[in-house]
């Protein structure tokens, strides 16, 4: 780790101000950033902690929407969203281990947009709205490829507004070493349609599988997906799976998610 200054503001305004300084970076739960710092792969001049801002934390219902503060830990989501949005709570409970779940945050996860992270699948599959200190961004516009989002320099995610689906489920196939998603699929069924989002599989990060969505609108059952397959092209190739394997798993995990949600 290189030396850096550390500030811990208690309001969003103060955090935005601190982040406008040259070389400043935000840190939420730090579950990705701290290992990166320890490996000296990142050298911020100032780390601006978002963990001291009370208004970033908490889960509350607003009509048909579940609003989750960006600074809410995975463990808190697993606990506090269970009654209103069990599919999301179950996803949160599958992230990392207890230590990660008690430090890592929703905002940190989606701002990092790791192509194998779990949360982006839920955000995209529910068509959630990402609220920042300065605007609202639709999920379809927010995720822009591996480790890339619509966020501007110094922009802070403050909350995510999840439309609550009628039914939903997340099916995750864990990479054996990291236990990130080798392929994870979140399926959400609403009165007006079905959305399917896939994480872990694509070189472009989380994506919607629209053919599956259309098939599931016609019949929300695993059998509706029997003849569907995503193309191998653009799937991640690494030690843990070939593109063909990941493409296959997208089908398997989507069917399992539909079954679990039905």
């Amino acid at each position, binding site marked *: *780790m290189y*030396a850096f200054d550390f500030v811990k503001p208690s309001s969003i305004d103060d955090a935005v101000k601190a982040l406008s300084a040259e070389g400043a970076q935000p840190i939420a739960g730090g579950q990705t950033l701290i290992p990166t710092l320890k*490996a*000296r792969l990142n050298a911020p001049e100032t780390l601006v902690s978002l963990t001291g801002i009370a208004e970033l934390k908490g889960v509350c219902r607003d009509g048909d929407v579940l609003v989750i503060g960006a600074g809410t830990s995975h463990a808190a989501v697993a606990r506090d969203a269970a009654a209103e949005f069990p599919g999301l709570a179950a996803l949160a409970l599958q992230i990392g281990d207890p230590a990660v779940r008690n430090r890592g945050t929703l905002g940190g996860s989606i701002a990092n947009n790791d192509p194998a992270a779990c949360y982006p699948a839920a955000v995209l599959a529910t068509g959630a709205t990402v609220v920042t200190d300065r605007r609202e961004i639709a999920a379809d516009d927010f995720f822009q490829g591996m480790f890339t989002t619509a966020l501007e320099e110094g922009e802070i995610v403050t909350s995510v507004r999840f439309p609550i689906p009628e039914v939903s489920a997340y099916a995750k*196939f864990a990479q*054996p*070493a*990291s236990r990130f998603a*080798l392929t994870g699929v979140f399926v959400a069924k609403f009165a007006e349609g079905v959305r399917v989002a896939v994480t872990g599989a694509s070189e472009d990060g989380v994506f919607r599988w629209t053919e599956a969505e259309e098939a599931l609108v016609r019949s929300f059952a695993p059998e509706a997906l029997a003849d569907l397959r995503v193309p191998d092209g653009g799937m991640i190739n*690494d*030690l*843990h*799976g*070939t593109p*063909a*394997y990941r493409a*296959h*798993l997208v089908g*398997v995990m989507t069917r399992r998610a539909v079954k679990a949600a039905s």
Partner: protein
Amino acid sequence: MPKDIEAQGGIGASTKRREDIRFLTGNGRYTDDINLRGQAYVHFLRSDMAHGRINGLDTAAADAMPGVIRIFTAKDFEGVGGLPCGWQVTDRHGQPMQEPKHPVLAEGKVRHVGDPIAAVVAETPDAARDAAEAIVFDIDELPAVIDMKAALAEGATKVHDDLSSNLCYDWGFVEENREAVNEAFTKAAHVTRLDLVNNRLVANPMEPRVAVGDYDAWNDQSTLYTTSQNPHVIRLLMGAFVLGIPEHKLRVVAPDVGGGFGSKIFHYAEEAFCTFAARQLKRPVKWTSSRAEAFLSDAHGRDHVTTIELALDADHKFAAIRTETRANMGAYLSTFAPSVPTWLHGVLMAGNYTTPLIYVNVKAVFTNTIPVDAYRGAGRPEATFQLERVIDKAARELGVDPVELRRKNFIKPEQFPYQTPVAVVYDTGNYHATMDKLLEISDHAGFAARAETSKANGKLRGFGIAHYIEACGIAPSNLVGQLGARAGLYESATVRVNATGSISVYTGSHSHGQGHETTFAQVVAEMIGIDAGQVEIHHGDTSNTPMGMGTYGSRSLAVGGSAIVKATNKIIDKAKKIAAHLLEASEADIELKDGKFAVAGTDKSVDWAGVTLAAYVPHNYPLESLEPGLEETAFYDPSNFTYPSGGYGCEVEVDPETGKVEILAFSAADDFGNIVNPMIVDGQVQGGLAQGIGQALLENCTYDENGQLLSASYMDYAMPRADDLPSFRVDHSCVTPCTHNPLGVKGCGEAGAIGSPPAVVNAVIDALQRGGYTHVTHIDMPLTPARVWAAMQK
């Protein structure tokens, strides 16, 4: 276990591990807990390329950085020896292996990612690391030699320019049998052939390596604190071969060590560096490995590519075995690397079977990878894996039950001692008994019904068996000397009885998790008949323990324990003389029982403390014929290896949609000979099973074609976790005591890692075959979901 055995805490009691109290309460003293006054810190600049020629190193900018004390490069080590190799293998043509120099810091070339190029000593770890980043180096990248087959091809780039090729040795065993074996194959009724890989592993002990070098000008004494399984071996190798420090001026201390699995046997550059730099700088120098550095600098394990062929006669008796292996040595020869694919591997190829003819060919190969050396089992897992896989494949090809095929070829109980065709003589064993016990504890008979249940749930269920043998209790010194070992493999003990009767035992063995402080105390307590709490075990410091060879090869109780027994017997002999004097009786009439010396047939006795006090306060004492004091040292050199064996059974379910393997049950029926502490044996077996299952399903150390380590962290190197493993069924009730050591013990430390990989793979292949995937006859480890799924696709 009867209550009195538990209460007394002697042999056979599942005494809780006394050392765990300090480990679990934060009172352990590991090497990183040692901080000396005025200590400086070293950071090693390591190569980020696999192979390159060093044109120049410019340390000027780094030298000027704050806190830098001195930067060392290869030129500071002119006149210093390279890291020695402790075993010289002779090839099949009678020539010694090719043995390249292994410099402390890279000379002229870098040969693997992680090869240390320079060492920065500074006031703080961060200052050292900052300065290391400021070193400017000019290295021309050379083609990396990674694939072993390519490394041996004509005209291949050489890892070592001064060697004739990348071939370390071409070993044949038993060379005289080569033609007879080939002949047997031409006559065989059936031949089963299997190509397989024994995957490369990273040891990953919980405690990364640490070294602290110190120098005391008062007595010109160097001290090295290090994470070692064998401090005396390090003192000998480093003192005599690297730094030229005589042993009486060099002390090596290995305090609490948090796991080793073999990787902490070897003498490493960082140890020599810290000792050397402390002398140069006249201040302590400390190195603490990060986990990332451990992946790049600890010796790796396994990495064999093998073709094995099994010839059977018409009656399904094994007629001959022929193997060809390429074994990766990495870029340099680690301390015992040459012995692993040869004498720790070839001599085990008879397994539990009566195969009369065996020929093993091993080509050891230099590549631009981290050195490979012994890792839990060391050669024996590789032998067992080949054998138990090819037998299973043969059974399938012949349409016979794999259990029956094994039974038919087992050495029978009445055939012991059994001379194998690969040099060793098994003293005892009963393989039919361990197989029967395995089938019982694994409920083999109920498998078919369980398989039906799985099928109904859309899963493929399989059962796999492996029956292993290992050669432990390493090793007869005269024998290993003939085989190329540059060391003896005895063990030592000093038993120092204190005046009031408590006992301090100094052992040359070293505990890095095995529980010696508990087990060894149980042995001494049992022999004398006192409470185990009266006995304290000391290890790990060359300044107070007799020359010992350390802990590996499941040798500590069989060899180290035997030395303790020998020394304790000397104590008892002398104590009887003292007791005879005190009781005014003949020595021949003195009996030791329950901590009392009694005159046979009388009620006259003196207790243990009465004798020990007399030894040190010799007022009433036969001084004319007996020295005062009660302290004895013994060295024990085994006359043979020990041969633990056992039957392992694995039951799996494969998810046909994803290829994921779940282990539902794992059973181990071992014959370890006599058992001192059953609870510790259970733990050793369970730990070994976890490691073997890790190798079979999860762990894979992988390089790309440029020699970059792809699995360089836990994000990509999959360690087994509790939820990857079932609750093990462990049994060691089958006992054929070792006939040649005083305790009748065989050793249990490596068995789990040796026997489990083939059982797991056999189970997965069984599941796939039963599920109709009959084209799948082998999958290379680790059997990851992706590999299993790919194999299932036609």
